[in-house]
Each structure stands twice: as structure tokens, then as C-alpha cells.
């Protein structure tokens, strides 16, 4: 039935269908809200890349900016680095998620992993990077734990672990954050395919549990998580905060260099920065093309492999690898946050001591009271942006199902554009749009900006469960006399409470983590936990970073915890809606 919604009507008849009302405009409105800013932002980047920015004296079109970019001696390496770290992080994350699911789906370990997901999703990217850096640096926690008794190190060794020229530390930092996200998306997708039944059938045919999963479930799950994978690829290639902390700098990735140029006092570098942003976009397009080609190749090879009929009985290796990946991710994020927590109360703490000389609440006394205002602002922004995003996403999806709004239904994939277009490629233009539109740098403007980034994630997380909902419930309810609104509010929404809340938590997390959009549109006047954290972190005090990282994590953990707890309490007496 789900096909019907996108298929062309042979000859539209209004018979038996309600006439589209205000709801039918929801997709158009949503697309306008999303595409306007992105298009304006892209225009505001492409124009200076081609030499047009009258405010800085750019008044003729040309390719000077691209030539200047090519003349930067770090260009080939920076571009290659972006491609390598992006593809590497995506491939590693996908492999880890596949191993985890193939090895463990349906076991108690898998349930434990599912439950542990929320805290892992709650750790902000930058905090995860800081935590990981402190863990694996030559003077980090792991080295301290083994020194000097095992290693003999009284001083940290001069080893290039962080910021290595090949970007391996950067890949690790990205992977530990992308695995939980991809796993969340995969879990949702697993709910849409009869994974347990497929697996049972395959096992009855003599396949080992892992082979059964990879051969019967994965091919159907992959199309469902394709878009999240592309989002991971786009994010990994253009991540700035993680790359600054863990990535190489001689040269850095292209995205980092673009941000440096963008912030350079030499205003003429803005043109070069814009050219770099456009190049970044082209690189991403290339990487996506490469990935698509890889998909086709893998599909072809995979089909032959499946048809060969190998039963692959032994699951042990996959289980060990998958379990190892899950444990490493959880361990890295957990220990990273623990490290930051210890730093937030540390007195003097020198190498090779595994714990501080003394503990002190001074950092919390100093910064704790100051968390209140930005904390409240963070909740207001995230709550409003998430609420709006939820309303729009639900309206779009409901309109799509009610009226089969065809053109908009097809165009709705454009909602995902902000996931795929690197922030560096359109934020400067977005700021210009906000200014030109006369938006004052206030809370409302920032909420609208957050919406552009929150909505795609909410949509991504909500669309599949919403579309997969068994519409015969709606048919039954209608036959019982319930109109479409009553069906939506009293049947559909309550049954979808869990995915709706998960989508809200994800949207909330995205909003809490936004730095540049908040700064650029809010002119620094709208101060959130994240803008404060970044400003204070520029001083490099790990105690402050610890305090703010914990505060950010807590701000995101709360909605995730609610998203888990509310359905559990609400449906504690409804076995049909419990997921275990």
C-alpha cells in the first residue's frame, strides 16, 4: 500500500476522498522553510566564489578565487584528506553497525546495546572528541594508567597519535559518534522489515545466524538506511569541531581550512573560503557518486555470494568483532565523558598520575551558577525548534497519506538537503539572508534557523515508522465513523508515540549541538550552552570544558531518557506496544 502514495494517479478522481484542506499545503510550506534558507545560503556562497561580493569590493565575475584556492600548497592533500576521512569513517561505521546487528540481533546483548544507545547519542561531537583525545594521547588516560609501572614512561613519549597526517585519529573520533546514530537508524529500519521471520526461515534452511542476517535482512535494511549513511558521509567530510581537535593540521581537512579562511582577518580570503566551500560541495558530490558506484558493485557481488548458498555456520568471529565494536564505541565515549567529568573536579593533575592530586569543586562553583541562563535558553530554542519540526513533519506525512500529495511527496526528499549540504557551504549566505530579511538577532530568528537543521533529522527518524504504520487501522477507524482528524489524534499518534518521541529527542540533540548557526544568526546575543562552551573552550581550560561538556550531555540525555521512559510508562499495560 505504501507504494500508492508516490504513484501517479491515472486520472485523478475526487470520489471517496476528502478534499485537500489546509493540511495539503504542509509539504509546500515545509519545503519553502527548508529550501529558502539553503538556496539563499548556497547563493551567498557561490556568488563570492565567483568573485561577487560588493561589500568587499568583489564586483566582477571570474575564477580568481578558485585559482587562489588551487595555488594554496595544501590544497591537494586537504582535499584528499577530506575524502579519505569521510569515506573511511562512513565505511567503518557501517561495517561496525552491520557486525553488531548481524552478530547480536535478537539476543539479550542486543537489547542492552539498544538501551545504551541514548546516552551515547547524547554526547556532543566536540565533547566526544575532547574525551577521546584525552584518552588516547601519549599523555592521555590510557598511557597514564599504564605508566610508569608497565611502560616505564616518566614523561609522555613524543608519539604522533592525535592529529596524525592521515587522519586516523579523526576517523576514530567520527566513528564513535556515527556508530550510535547509524545504529539508531538501523534499529528503526529493522522494525520495518520482517527481520526476525526472515532470519528464522534462513536458519531453518541451515544458514548460520550471521549469514542468515547478512543474506536476508541486510539487503532489505540497506535501502532504508541509505539516506542516513549519506548523511554520515556528508557530516564526516565536513565536520569542523571534531577535525580541529583530532584531525591533522599540516594541512587540515578542507572544511577546517575553509572555516579558518572565513574567520581570517584578511577579508580578501573570504573569496577563497567561498571557493573552498563550493569545492567541498563538489567533493561531497564526488564521494556520494563513488559510494553509489560501490553500492552497485557490492550489490552485484553480494547477489552472487548469496546465490552460491554458503551457510557460514560460525558466528563466533562476527560476534566478537561486532561486540568489540560496540564495546569500543561505548568505552571510548564513556571513558571520554568520565575523563571530562574528572577534569571538571581536578586540582593539579600531571602525567603520569592516573587520578588528580586533589579534587576541588571550584570549577563547578565558578561555572555552575552560570549554566542556568544559557541552559534555559538552550531548552527554549531546542524545545521550540523541535516542536515546530515535529508539527511540520507530522503535517507533511499526514498530508502525504491523506491526499497522496503527489508532487510534494516526490519533492519531499529535498527536506534532507541540509543534511547533505555542508554547513560551511551555506551558513555565511544564510546569515546574509537573515540580515537582508531584517531579522533581528533574537530568539525567534535563531529558532527558525535551528529548524532548518532539526527538521531533516526529525523527518528522517519519523518518516519510515509513520509510513510503515498499518493503514488498515485507519480504515477500521473510518468504518467506525471516525473522521481523518480523529483517526490521526486518537489512533495514529498514540500508536506512534515511541517513534515520535525518539524523533523529538534526536531533533533536540541536533539543536543543542548547533554552534555556528546560533552564533551567526543570533549575533552572539542568543547564548546557549554550546556557544558558551565553545567561547570558553577557546581558552583551553580542560576543567571548564569538562563542566560544559557534562552540561551539554545532560541537556540531551534528558529528552532521550524521556523518549524511552514515556512510552514505557504509558504502555506498561499494553503488550501490543511494548517493544520487548
Amino acid at each position, binding site marked *: 500500500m505504501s507504494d500508492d502514495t508516490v504513484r501517479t494517479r491515472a486520472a485523478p478522481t475526487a470520489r471517496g476522498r476528502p478534499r485537500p484542506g489546509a493540511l495539503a499545503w504542509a509539504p509546500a510550506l515545509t519545503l519553502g522553510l527548508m529550501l529558502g534558507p539553503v538556496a539563499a545560503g548556497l547563493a551567498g556562497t557561490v556568488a563570492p566564489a565567483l568573485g561577487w561580493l560588493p561589500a568587499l569590493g568583489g564586483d566582477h565575475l571570474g575564477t580568481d578565487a578558485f585559482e587562489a584556492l588551487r595555488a594554496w600548497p595544501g590544497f591537494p592533500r586537504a582535499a584528499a584528506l577530506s575524502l579519505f576521512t569521510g569515506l573511511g569513517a562512513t565505511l567503518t561505521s557501517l561495517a561496525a553497525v552491520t557486525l553488531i546487528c548481524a552478530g547480536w540481533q535478537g539476543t539479550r546483548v542486543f537489547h542492552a546495546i539498544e538501551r545504551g544507545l541514548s546516552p551515547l547519542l547524547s554526547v556532543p561531537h566536540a565533547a566526544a572528541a575532547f574525551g577521546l583525545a584525552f584518552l588516547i594521547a601519549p599523555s592521555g588516560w590510557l598511557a597514564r594508567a599504564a605508566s610508569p609501572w608497565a611502560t616505564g614512561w616518566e614523561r609522555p613519549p613524543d608519539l604522533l597519535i592525535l592529529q596524525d597526517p592521515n587522519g586516523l585519529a579523526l576517523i576514530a573520533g567520527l566513528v564513535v559518534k556515527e556508530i550510535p546514530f547509524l545504529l539508531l537508524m538501523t534499529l528503526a529500519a529493522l522494525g520495518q522489515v520482517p527481520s526476525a521471520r526472515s532470519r528464522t526461515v534462513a536458519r531453518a534452511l541451515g544458514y548460520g545466524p550471521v549469514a542468515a542476517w547478512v543474506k536476508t535482512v541486510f539487503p532489505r535494511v540497506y535501502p532504508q538506511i541509505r539516506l542516513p549513511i549519506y548523511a554520515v558521509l556528508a557530516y564526516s567530510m565536513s565536520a569542523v569541531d571534531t577535525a580541529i581537535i583530532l584531525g591533522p593540521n599540516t594541512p587540515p581537512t578542507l572544511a577546517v581550512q575553509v572555516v579558518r579562511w572565513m574567520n581570517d582577518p584578511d577579508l580578501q580570503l573570504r573569496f577563497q573560503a567561498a571557493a573552498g566551500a563550493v569545492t567541498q560541495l563538489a567533493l561531497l558530490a564526488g564521494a556520494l557518486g563513488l559510494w553509489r558506484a560501490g553500492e552497485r558493485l557490492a550489490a552485484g557481488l553480494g547477489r552472487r555470494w548469496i546465490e552460491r548458498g554458503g551457510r557460514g555456520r560460525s558466528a563466533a568471529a562476527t560476534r566478537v568483532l561486532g561486540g568489540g565494536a560496540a564495546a569500543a564505541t561505548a568505552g571510548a565515549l564513556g571513558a571520554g565523558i568520565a575523563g571530562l567529568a574528572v577534569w571538571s573536579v581536578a586540582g593539579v593533575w600531571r602525567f603520569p598520575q592516573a587520578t588528580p592530586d586533589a579534587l576541588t569543586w571550584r570549577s563547578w562553583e565558578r561555572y555552575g551558577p552560570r549554566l542556568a541562563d544559557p541552559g534555559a535558553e538552550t531548552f527554549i530554542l531546542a524545545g521550540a525548534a523541535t516542536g515546530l519540526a515535529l508539527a511540520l513533519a507530522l503535517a507533511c506525512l499526514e498530508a502525504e497519506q491523506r491526499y497522496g500529495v503527489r508532487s510534494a511527496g516526490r519533492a519531499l526528499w529535498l527536506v534532507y538537503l541540509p543534511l547533505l549540504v555542508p554547513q560551511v557551504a551555506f551558513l555565511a549566505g544564510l546569515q546574509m539572508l537573515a540580515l537582508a530579511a531584517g531579522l533581528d538577532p533574537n530568539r525567534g530568528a535563531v529558532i527558525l534557523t535551528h529548524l532548518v537543521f532539526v527538521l531533516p533529522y526529525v523527518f528522517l527518524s519519523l518518516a519510515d515508522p509513520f509510513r510503515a504504520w498499518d493503514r488498515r487501522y485507519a480504515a477500521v477507524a*473510518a468504518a467506525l465513523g471516525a473522521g481523518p482528524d480523529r483517526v490521526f489524534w486518537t489512533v495514529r499518534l498514540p500508536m506512534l508515540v515511541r517513534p515520535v518521541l525518539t524523533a523529538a529527542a534526536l531533533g533536540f540533540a541536533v539543536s543543542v549541538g548547533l554552534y555556528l548557526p546560533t552564533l551567526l544568526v543570533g549575533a552572539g546575543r542568543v547564548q546557549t550552552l554550546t556557544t558558551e562552551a565553545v567561547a570558553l573552550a577557546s581558552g583551553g581550560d580542560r576543567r571548564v570544558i569538562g563542566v560544559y561538556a557534562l552540561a551539554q550531555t545532560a541537556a540531551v540525555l534528558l529528552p532521550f531518557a524521556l523518549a524511552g521512559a514515556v512510552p514505557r510508562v504509558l504502555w506498561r499495560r499494553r*503488550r501490543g506496544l511494548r517493544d520487548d
Partner: protein
Amino acid sequence: MTDAAGLRFDRLSITLGRNRLVTLDGHVAPGDVLTVMGPSGSGKSTLLSVISGTAAAVFQVRGGIHLDGRDITGLAPEARRVGILFQDELLFPHLSVGGNLAFGLPPSVAGRRERRRRVEAALAEVNLAGFANRDPATLSGGQQVRVALMRMLLSEPRALLLDEPFPRLDAGLRDRIRQAVLDRARTRRLPVVLVTHDAADARAAGGRIHHLDPHEAGTDLRPSPRTGDPA
């Protein structure tokens, strides 16, 4: 008109693209059963969705459907007063058994106590007294079917559609439930359309049998640009 009461199909035809799936012309009187038989994919369920108003927009519908003299072809599903039972019971999992029944009860039945009383009475009628607060997921298959049936009847439908009902019940229980449904339809003088591929269903219903011809649709499935519209 003598045949105003009941369900009347006025040269109803359902096509998908160039393929005519169903054509139906005739009348189902109150208390009568029309059994529609045909193999999988012959358009049985599509016919029911067209009658109940939930068919997807891809299907083209010509002709009309009248219920008790009223043309319901263009009406919204909730305005048609056509009850339907699917293969699955589709009890709302977020509501209690009583909540499911109350969902079917029209708002014209006012007052908490009165609504409660009607729900309890309906449960008692199918030997489920005291089940109002139960979680539907904890009921047996036969109990779920009975709840679904009473939920539908409480909504006071004017016609009844059965879509290959009760496939998961064992044979004995199935016969009894089928009989209970048909009995109630007869007492309430509801026209019934039963869609099935099971000869036992058709025999038990006892009414007319309409066969959907798979070959008609099958031949039309061949792409033949030269021949015009089969209609």
C-alpha cells in the same frame, strides 16, 4: 423503490490503468449475503476498499454504490456507515478492550455511564463480561475476533463487509464465529459482502456467489498498444 433498502451496485467498475479488475452490478438486500470469490490478486480486497471508501487514488472507479437509497460513492469513509472486518482483528493496541468498543460507539450515545453500560452489554453479548479493562494483546484469537465484531456493530453500520475473515482460528471455532457474525447481520438486517477464496465460507453464507475472473484481468495485463481501452 422496493430495492432502496440494502446495498446496490450500479454498473460498478474498478480499473487500474488499462486493467479492469472488477465489474459488479446488482443488489444485496438487508440480511442477505453476497459472496465474492476469486484467487489472490483478482481484486477482491480492492472491491471492499472501494465500498468502504479507503481505496487508493490509483484505482479508477466508475458507476455507483448506493446504501439504503443513498449514493455513498463520493462520501468520506467515516460518513458511509459501512462496517468492515479484516483478516486481522486490528484492535487498537493503545486502548483497552473497553476503549476499543467505546471508540466504535457513536457520540450520540451520551454520558459516561450510558456509554459504559453499552460497552459492558456488548461484551456480555459475546461472553466477555468483565473484560473491559483488559489489554487487547492479552486476549486469545477467538476473543479478539469477538471484540472486533462488537466494536464494529456498536458503530451502528448499515452494511457489513467481511474480508477473508477469521483465517487464524481453528476450524470448529471458525464455524461458530462465522455463524455468530452472520446471525447478527441477519437480525440487524444488514446487507453483507463477504470476500473469500474459501468454499466453506461461501457455503455457510448461503447467498449468491460472484466469481471474479482472473483471466479477464490476466489478459488485460499484456501490454497491447494497438487494442484500445478494454472498457
